[in-house]
């Protein structure tokens, strides 16, 4: 069978038109069918929710002198987020933990470093970087940055590839090598646990900010951690940054940490 150019164009035109017709028909059916309720329902923030352009923290190490100053902060966080206490150190899960100067500020370390700093326990957690390498490494967008600068995990999308762990220069991420549930002493029923095969880390208490509460570590720190909007020049945290000398972890990497330390 031979078809001339004119016939071919006619046929192509009819096909295109019918495809367009069919798809728009489908979309309309969708809108008036099951989607209906979604269009009318309203999704909103809680009115009490705390908001910012970019959340940040200043950790005042002069107020956290000993391990016993730090321990309650760590256990507060780990308790409300159902962070398990693994018996096997290699399987350890941590959202916020204690570290020595030589590890926290490795590039500042030298043999004559001040005695106080050398033995001071430092509180470390996810830096909620402005330019987070973990987000770039994640192949499924499970890790992402919110509009308020929080580096978040969407556990529903995590496939456990651990690229983010390799990308993070601060060791802020932990992998669930086993089911964490048997290792949670007291479960907080209001917050989900995690499961074997996903990565987890600090979420800057997004679930608390959403209902107008400060991150739990800030609340448990007796004023040693100052929390606020780094992009608001009037905020308390900016005042603290302005009146104190502060340092950040591994600034040369260009990740732009949002956690500052007064040392």
């Amino acid at each position, binding site marked *: 069978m031979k078809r001339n150019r004119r016939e071919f164009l006619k046929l192509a035109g009819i096909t295109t038109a019918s495809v367009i017709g069919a798809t728009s028909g489908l979309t309309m059916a969708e809108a008036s069918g099951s989607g209906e*309720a979604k269009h009318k329902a309203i999704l909103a923030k809680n009115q009490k929710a705390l908001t910012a352009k970019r959340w940040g923290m200043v950790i005042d190490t002069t107020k956290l002198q000993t391990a016993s100053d730090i321990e309650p902060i760590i256990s507060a966080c780990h308790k409300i987020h159902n962070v398990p206490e693994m018996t096997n150190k290699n399987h350890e899960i941590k959202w916020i933990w204690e570290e020595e100067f030589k590890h926290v500020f490795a590039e500042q370390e030298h043999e004559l470093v001040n005695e106080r700093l050398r033995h001071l326990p430092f509180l470390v957690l996810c830096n909620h970087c402005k330019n987070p390498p973990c987000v770039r490494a994640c192949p499924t967008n499970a890790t992402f940055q919110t509009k308020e600068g929080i580096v978040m995990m969407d556990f529903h999308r995590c496939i456990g590839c651990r690229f983010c762990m390799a990308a993070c220069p601060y060791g802020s991420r932990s992998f669930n090598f086993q089911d964490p549930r048997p290792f949670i002493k007291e479960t907080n029923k209001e917050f989900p646990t995690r499961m074997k095969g996903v990565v987890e880390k600090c979420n800057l208490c997004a679930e608390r900010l959403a*209902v107008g509460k400060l991150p739990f570590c800030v609340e448990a720190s007796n004023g040693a951690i100052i929390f606020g909007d780094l992009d608001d020049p009037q905020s308390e945290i900016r005042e603290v940054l302005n009146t104190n000398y502060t340092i950040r972890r591994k600034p040369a990497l260009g990740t732009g940490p949002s956690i500052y330390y007064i040392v």
Partner: protein
Amino acid sequence: MLKEKRIFNKKLVIAGLIIFIGVITFPFWFNHAKVVAPPEVKLTEKAKEAKECVLPDKVKMRGNHMQLLDMWRDTVVRDGNRKYIGTNGKEYEMSLSNTCLDCHSNKADFCDKCHEYASVNPYCWDCHIDNPKETKNNETQ
């Protein structure tokens, strides 16, 4: 010269065919034999009091609760919005354990019963607490 076409081993072939047809139609006649009654889901006192679910239409809720939950989790985790004002004007906190299971605290007799019947096995409970109410009383377990 061509040979006459005919079936060899006629008996075997026909018996084989009957068995073959029997096997491939197995699911049809097997299921036809027994009718499984759909489960009767039980509502808690709290749910009965509320009268309506999140989508006021029960049939929609039955058919679309998975999409609703998907939308809830994306909205909460990705957009940071946690309040849902339904078409009935009622306000809900978008939470699987803290909202759905607040009314449907009889998960075993409600969600599970129906899912068992429908052969679905949501993996949500690997992380989400499936008894937020029950064990509040006897917390030290």
